[in-house]
């Protein structure tokens, strides 16, 4: 699935991923391939993106919103 992490100042990450771990407002959760459409608030924490080679990319955020739609994840982070 495609993922992009966008902040007001730059595009932090753009690429393909196997899974994404997110700091949800009511607890952390993980989005896998072909997850249903979802919109959720994120709190301060770390986003962990696992790409096809199983290597992890970590991004710290203060707050944010995640949207998953047609197998594309967009994360608005600040």
């Amino acid at each position, binding site marked *: 699935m495609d993922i992009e992490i966008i902040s*007001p100042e730059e*595009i932090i990450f753009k690429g393909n991923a196997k899974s994404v771990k997110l700091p949800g407002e*009511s607890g952390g959760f993980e989005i896998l391939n072909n997850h249903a*459409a*979802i*919109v959720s*608030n994120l709190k301060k924490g770390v986003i962990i993106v696992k790409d096809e080679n199983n290597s992890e990319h970590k991004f710290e955020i203060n707050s944010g919103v995640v*949207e998953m739609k047609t197998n594309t994840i967009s994360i*608005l982070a600040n």
Partner: protein
Amino acid sequence: MPNLKEIKSRITSVKSTIQITSAMKMVSAAKLKKAQDAIIQLRPYSNKLTEIMSSVSSASEDSSKNKYSEVREVSKILLVPITSNRGLCGGFNANIIKKTIEIEKELNSRSELTILSIGKKSSEFFKKNKYNVHSTHDDVFQDVNYEDVSKIAELILNDFANEKFDKVILVYNQFKNAATQIVMQEDFLPLNKTQSENSQEAVDYIYEPGKDEILNELIPKSLKTQLFKAILDSNASEHGARMTAMHKATDNATELKNELTLSYNKARQAAITGEILEIVGGAEALNG
């Protein structure tokens, strides 16, 4: 005929003016490029934010009950003029101040006016003229970043939510291109509901924790982004305006230099002619 030395020193001073103004023009051009890039960088974020917001609020029945979209009878108004910290940029700052005063006259006597100024030039003006200044924020332009701007936005949002103000208006230069800035008067709060265009294909989202909670997160974010965009626009406009102003100054100074060089040469010619006449006259007096 002015004497040669006088003209010569004026030419030197005009030359150094040209050097300064053309250097400033170059610096502004480089900064303009950076400021424009920042505007472009914001675009994907603000587009996505608007997209999510419109799909969430179209799914939510009563999106109007948010505290930032509450329309009250207007008696206390906050004006937010955004100017630069530095001068030498043509009518850039004067236009904003003029527009702010214009708005004030329109509203006069009916409502109480407070100023929250961003940028040293407007802060100085409104303080000096004894306006009711809420606070000044001049540091943002040293290094424009989202975090600083969002603090200012939070301040405004809180005051609006606590009914300290019933309406907030931004006045800033919108960036059109390097040579053109448009003075914009933009209603910041209360939030007007321009959404609810149901052109979006309705996606059946799972909302976590809930639609209202998400909207409550999204609305301040979008307002912060709006203020951030206004400041980025103003920043780019400032450099554009300075570049144009410095370009004109360089042109004028070059013209002046050419005129002075011409009169310098004329004066030199006249002096030489005079000297020759004296020599010839002297020689003839000896012969005669």
